[in-house]
């Protein structure tokens, strides 16, 4: 049944990445004619024409399905029409995708018609993506789709990509292109690590100095409120959540440029050395500032989650500062600076909880025994499998939800087919109960920006991130063979290139339609 690539025997579902959960298909196929191809809403569908998400999806997927089509082609004679009928149970068309939005869909392809049923519009978008990947062309350019039944849903709810726009500024176009490519692999969370030490490109309406003094350039290397809104609405139409990260108290050098007194002045002996460290946790002004900033961030970013960072805090500056030491004494923390960090993070989490947001923090926060609300999600990023598997056990044992990023730091490039390492990760392989395993809500591919900007982002991200995409969506047993995945991923990569995504090759070979740029 696993036959490969003769036009006689093409099995459509094989061309779908990530692999759907359940499918049956046959070699019976139907021709598709772009001039007689329609999307429509089912009579029972809660969403009807006027639904922004699906109306734009229909338009988008038409071009993706028929890449050669231009309306100049009038020669094809219009024979039997083909209808893709979409029905959703809930009309959540004007809402944002949530952490628990259903992405389930059923797709049934038979003669003249494909029936796509889903609970939500987000599920329908996933189904349309699958359908678009099932259509193929023969050597003469004619389009076909095979008779198929698919029942599909994601294994994990949270399937994210992290982009870092602080180490290098990424033009908005580059972000939007990434969102397109994410949708092709069914990623559903864009984790926007928007600011960090090197630069602060986020233009805050409450604190405009943050970017005017902290960005690489106050005009050309910023994200205006309008840019941010654009990214959020573009993501929404593809069923992608935008999760902002304002990482503190470490990773905040650029914040201090536009907000004096925010960062801790480091001391050399009894005099300030002129350098600054993490956010100053002892001043009330710090928390007043954070409250105002997060109030703004909470309203600008509609997702119910917010990432607070909390990683890699260097204690030496705090230690050198006499006011900080005095505060430690007053609070009874002694010489344990993890307690000071815990104090800081707890305050920030209180701020964001009061704003009705759930927090995600890097694992460091848990490792420092900070008091955090039950529903805070821990983001695991450190170590080799032995190390992160232990961490998964520990954190889920404490009843907390986790996200796995450690094995998917794809900014760490190396020579050869490293996509195989990303594909063979087993996110639930750790010692723990079934209950604990359920606390793994998903994972994230991280593309840190030290060596990455718009010149090399796309080939570095794709198709390697797609290997993780299948691990996060598909059934583990059905996708246990890397060797079987290889030809499918090669094909999928050629599809990405055809769709204008500059995805690099896995190994020697060729695509029918090569990338024609530079």
């Amino acid at each position: 049944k696993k036959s490969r690539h003769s036009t006689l025997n093409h099995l459509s579902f094989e061309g779908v990445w990530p692999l759907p959960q359940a499918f049956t298909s046959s070699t019976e196929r139907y021709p598709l004619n772009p001039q007689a191809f329609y999307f429509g809403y089912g009579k029972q569908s809660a969403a009807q024409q006027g639904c922004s998400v699906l109306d734009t999806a229909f338009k988008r997927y038409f071009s993706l399905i028929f890449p050669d089509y231009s309306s100049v082609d009038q020669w094809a004679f219009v024979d039997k029409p083909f209808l893709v009928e979409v029905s959703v149970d809930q009309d959540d068309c004007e809402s944002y995708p949530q952490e628990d939005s259903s992405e389930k869909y059923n797709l049934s392809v038979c003669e003249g018609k494909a029936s796509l049923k889903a609970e939500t519009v987000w599920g329908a978008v996933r189904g349309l993506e699958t359908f678009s990947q099932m259509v193929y062309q023969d050597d003469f350019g004619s389009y076909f789709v095979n008779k198929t039944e698919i029942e599909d849903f994601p294994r994990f709810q949270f399937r994210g990509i992290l982009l870092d726009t602080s180490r290098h500024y990424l033009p908005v176009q580059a972000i939007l292109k990434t969102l397109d490519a994410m949708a092709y692999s069914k990623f559903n969370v864009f984790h926007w690590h928007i600011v960090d030490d090197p630069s602060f490109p986020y233009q805050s309406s409450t604190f405009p100095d943050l970017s005017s003094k902290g960005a690489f350039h106050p005009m050309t290397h910023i994200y205006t409120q309008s840019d941010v809104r654009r990214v959020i609405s573009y993501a929404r139409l593809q069923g992608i959540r935008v999760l902002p990260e304002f990482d503190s108290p470490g990773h905040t050098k650029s914040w201090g440029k536009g907000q004096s007194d925010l960062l801790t002045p480091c001391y050399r002996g009894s005099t300030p050395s002129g350098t600054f460290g993490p956010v100053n946790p002892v001043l009330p002004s710090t928390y007043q500032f954070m409250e105002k900033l997060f109030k703004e961030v909470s309203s600008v970013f509609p997702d119910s989650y917010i990432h607070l960072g909390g990683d890699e805090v260097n204690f030496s500056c705090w230690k050198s500062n006499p006011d900080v030491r005095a505060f430690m004494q007053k609070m009874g923390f002694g010489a344990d600076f993890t307690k000071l960090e815990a104090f800081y993070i707890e305050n920030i989490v209180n701020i964001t909880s009061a704003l009705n947001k759930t927090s995600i923090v890097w694992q460091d926060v848990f490792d420092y025994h900070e008091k955090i609300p039950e529903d805070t999600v821990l983001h695991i990023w450190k170590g080799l499998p032995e190390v992160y598997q232990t961490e998964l056990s520990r954190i889920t044992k404490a009843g907390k939800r986790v996200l796995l990023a450690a094995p998917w730091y794809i900014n760490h490039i190396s020579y050869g087919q490293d996509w195989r390492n990303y594909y063979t990760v087993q996110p639930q392989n750790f010692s723990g109960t079934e209950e604990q395993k359920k606390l793994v809500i998903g994972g994230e591919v991280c593309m840190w920006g030290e060596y990455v900007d718009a010149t090399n982002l796309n080939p570095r991200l794709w198709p390697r991130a797609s290997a993780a995409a299948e691990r996060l969506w598909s059934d583990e047993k059905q996708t246990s063979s890397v060797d079987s995945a290889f030809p499918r991923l090669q094909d999928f990569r050629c599809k990405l290139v055809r769709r204008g995504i500059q995805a690099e090759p896995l190994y020697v070979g060729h695509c029918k339609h090569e990338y024609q740029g530079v």
Partner: protein
Amino acid sequence: MFGSTKKLGLSKSRRTGPSELTELQVWITSPDSECDDYPSVTSDESYELSVDLPFAVLKAPKVWGALHGLETFSQLLYEDEYGAKSVNATTISDFPRFAHRGILLDSSRHFLPIKVILANLETMAMNKFNVFHWHIVDDQSFPYLSRTFPQLSQQGAYHPYTHVYTPADVKMVIEFARLRGIRVIPEFDTPGHTQSWGKGQKDLLTPCYSGSKPSGTFGPINPILNTTYDFMNQFFKEISTVFPDAYVHLGGDEVDFTCWRSNPDIQQFMEQHRFQTRLQLLDIVTTTNKGYMIWQEVFDNGVKLKPDTLIHVWKGNQEQYQNEMANVTSSGYQTLLSTPWYLNRISYGQDWHGYYKADPQDFKGTEEQKKLVIGGEACLWGEYVDATNLTPRLWPRASAVAERLWSAKDVTDINDAFNRLSMHRCRMVERGIPAEPLFSSYCPREYKGI
């Protein structure tokens, strides 16, 4: 130089400011400018540049030096925060340390559309590279459309129409390169690395045997058939006319002897002709009037070589390649270094440091020997590279090699290099080349093409 400035309308009444530089004079100082010639390894690439008022003067014996001088001049310009361009008074006298400064691209493991080849030739010129080593065919595909043997690409290319280089394509590459002072040296690697040749040329490759029967697979080129030599003679005759450079790269690397050994006809031939080593068969493989470049194996295996053969060192760790350089030069051959500059071998972090530090004359030898090192080549093998990721993978890492091959031996300050290379990288980006970043940073004009 002025690409990013919006075009101001022609204004006849425009006064030039008192200290505005309005003219760069270019003088070719020798009677034969070589303008209509192809560049060669002996071309004079020197130039003198004097930026001064009332006009700047660029003097070079040949056009090749003038091209380099223009590139240098374009890099002297800088902008203030209002976008006004300035240049400082400068005197430069420049020439390359090594005459052969090359980039290898592999269009067999992945087909490379012409556009990406041309864009990289342009970038090579910005970096004063002067040799494009075109590893055009190999095991996986044969994209070169031969006039004499069109079936080679008809059967051997990934696709006979969309994944080939027509004679017109090849001409375009050669002329585009010439106008930028870049030589195009094709490599038709034999007798190994030739799987794709056998698709369109029956009986060219050796049939391997398992036991007494042919196994169905094929090995390197079959060295005992007369038809092989007829073919090779005709083929290389065509190559000699299509590619005007005085040198051709014959490959000669990684020849697997097991197939030859398994074939009874070859065994018999070897015994009859009393060949000591199998690679001596290489002697007869090609006859052209070009100079040859070959990979080091051919030398390592004791094959008799013409005295002007250029030996290309690519194997081993640092100690091993330094020994090889010493051996090759002590045998009197000219040599090129590539070993430390395999840019296809990517890793996390600032690997350009390693490329910058490597020096082709770093080995134990006499001054005479060191003179035989005529340069080096940065190689971007294509197993994991095609047009989607070629340019950011090549640049600016190859620029580190460029400086090592052009500039003086004692230009080694890595921190200073970082600052200058960062600026140079932004310059390439501004010119539309997606050269990747060195580290966290920004360019005033970021890369726009997505």
